[in-house]
């Protein structure tokens, strides 16, 4: 029997390393990594495709719910929420019959939660889980608001990019290329995930492989076939697909 690949997400170092340690002790599980924030979690889930995620609810920038929203409930692996005390979250977990662990938890409580997750995965009850996660993400307050900052790696340093600084975003395989004032930064987050995390009133997907910041749009040239080109303030031309035209018009509030 193959071991289940588990990802641990928690912003507190002790909690994170401790949990990974416990996972490693279970012969049926394999710890494939730990993440200290929501963005790292989205990257890891998309690239590593874990079988199970132990997900802290309260984290800076992208919280536990933000992670699920970014990945999309239908692609989200089974998840056990880990939380110290979030009243509204506990209520939501109970309502949607999702598993959660309360910090601090005993070894027995962790083992029980892991046992339930294993059974769910082996009995292939995942479609139910997708439904519940969809309901959960729909029910939690929208105040787990839109992304305001992303971290990018520049050489050995971690740099912070404010989303308002982004001109446009280009898909690059499973990653996304942020174009910021002439430089491009690659984040290992899919364009779809970014689209779900960004404020739809400011960022619009104009093409399968491009999101633009509406603030940077200089003009939009459309041809009779319906396709078009968005020209940004710095002269960059981004193709706009016919199929995305309605969405762009909706955000702009006028017909093109």
């Amino acid at each position, binding site marked *: 029997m193959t071991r289940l690949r588990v990802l641990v997400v928690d912003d*507190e*170092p002790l909690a994170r390393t*401790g949990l990974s340690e416990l996972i490693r002790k279970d012969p049926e599980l394999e710890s494939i990594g730990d993440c200290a924030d929501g963005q790292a979690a989205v990257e890891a889930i998309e690239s590593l495709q874990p079988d199970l995620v132990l997900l802290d609810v309260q984290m800076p*920038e992208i919280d536990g719910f933000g992670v699920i929203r970014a990945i999309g409930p239908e692609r989200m692996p089974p998840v056990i929420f880990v939380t*110290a005390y979030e009243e509204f979250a506990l209520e939501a977990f109970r309502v949607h019959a999702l598993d959660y662990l309360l*910090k*601090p938890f005993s070894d027995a409580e962790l083992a029980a939660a892991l046992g339930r997750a294993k059974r769910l995965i082996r009995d292939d009850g995942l479609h139910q889980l997708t439904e519940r996660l969809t309901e959960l993400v729909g029910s939690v307050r929208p105040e787990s608001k839109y992304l305001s900052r992303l971290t990018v790696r520049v050489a050995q340093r971690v740099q912070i990019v404010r989303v308002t600084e982004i001109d446009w975003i280009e898909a690059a395989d499973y990653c996304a290329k942020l174009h910021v004032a002439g430089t491009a930064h690659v984040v290992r987050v899919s364009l779809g995930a970014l689209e779900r995390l960004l404020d739809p009133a400011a960022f619009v997907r104009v093409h399968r492989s491009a999101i633009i910041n509406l603030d940077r749009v200089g003009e939009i040239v459309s041809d009779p076939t319906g396709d078009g080109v968005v020209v940004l303030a710095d002269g960059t031309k981004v193709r706009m697909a016919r199929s995305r035209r309605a969405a762009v018009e909706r955000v702009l509030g006028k017909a093109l």
Partner: protein
Amino acid sequence: MPTVTLTRNQRALAWALGIMALLAAVAVTRHHLEMMDHSPGGHYLTWGHAISQQAPDYILWALAIPLVYLFVDRVARRRWGWPRTVLAHAAFALVVALAVILLRNGWYGAKDFGTIMTSILPSQLFTYAAILGGVLAYHYSRVFVEREVELADARLRALRAQLRPHFMFNALNSVAMLVRSGRGTEAVDTIARVSDLLRDGLVDDDRAEVTLEEEVALARRYLAVEEVRFADRLEVRVDLTEQAKAARVPRLILQPLVENAVRHGISARAAAGRIGIRARVSGRELIVEVSDDGHGPAPAEQRTNGVGLRNTRERLKAAYGSAARFTLEHAPVGGAIATLVIPLGHEVGAQHAAPLPTP
């Protein structure tokens, strides 16, 4: 809070007016009876006459009560020294007494200035003194009660912050994880720090003021627990001058600021953060800064209207009036910086009430 104060003021005014009315009734009755006894040939003073002769005085003085109260309140807020306060009260007493006499003369007809100064003024000043006594007693009892309530509030808030479920459970989780990884000594240290913090909140300490050194020690115990939780993500720097350490500050004034710095500077972001507590004395003022290097304060309404910070401002105002200042700004190097400026050599509310006994 304002509504409570208002009704309390109104109630006090109603009492004062009631007492004045009673005194007026006694005076009118006595005047009426005396005039009856001493008037031969059935000539006596009617009730109407008695009232018209006695009532104006009482009505005028009743009207003066709110004025005297407002004056006492203003003077107390100014926090002048004794000589200036006494002088201000003497001047105001003279103005009010003369005003009452002049207004009354409308009923009596003019009297010459000499008579006013020698016969009427002293008795009017005496009346003023009696009213002032009552007003002062009321004012200081109110200030004392308010200060007690504020201190109790601050204690409750600090305790609640220490017992905030999220904080407590995460701290306990840190202990659990330390035990699991065999780091027993660190686990015990953390338990001791959490216990210190609980004791700080529970200990029955009624002092309104402590030294800055004590206050910072308390904030450090809170930060110590957070340091375990955030490990490499939190760095605390404390820098106090010797003079600043000895300065006296309202108890628990730093707690909400430090908590705020942790919440916005550390918890709200993934990168490591630094929290600084710095204090120095400049002239007659103590300047305390609590800084974080987080994202900086959000639009004013989001941060300064937080209950904790609004209370900080209110407590400072109650204790030092306009002599103390509190600001929360973007730090030049990024992040937020909260600055307290507290006047030195001012016992909190020393002019208001007897100092509380120190244990």
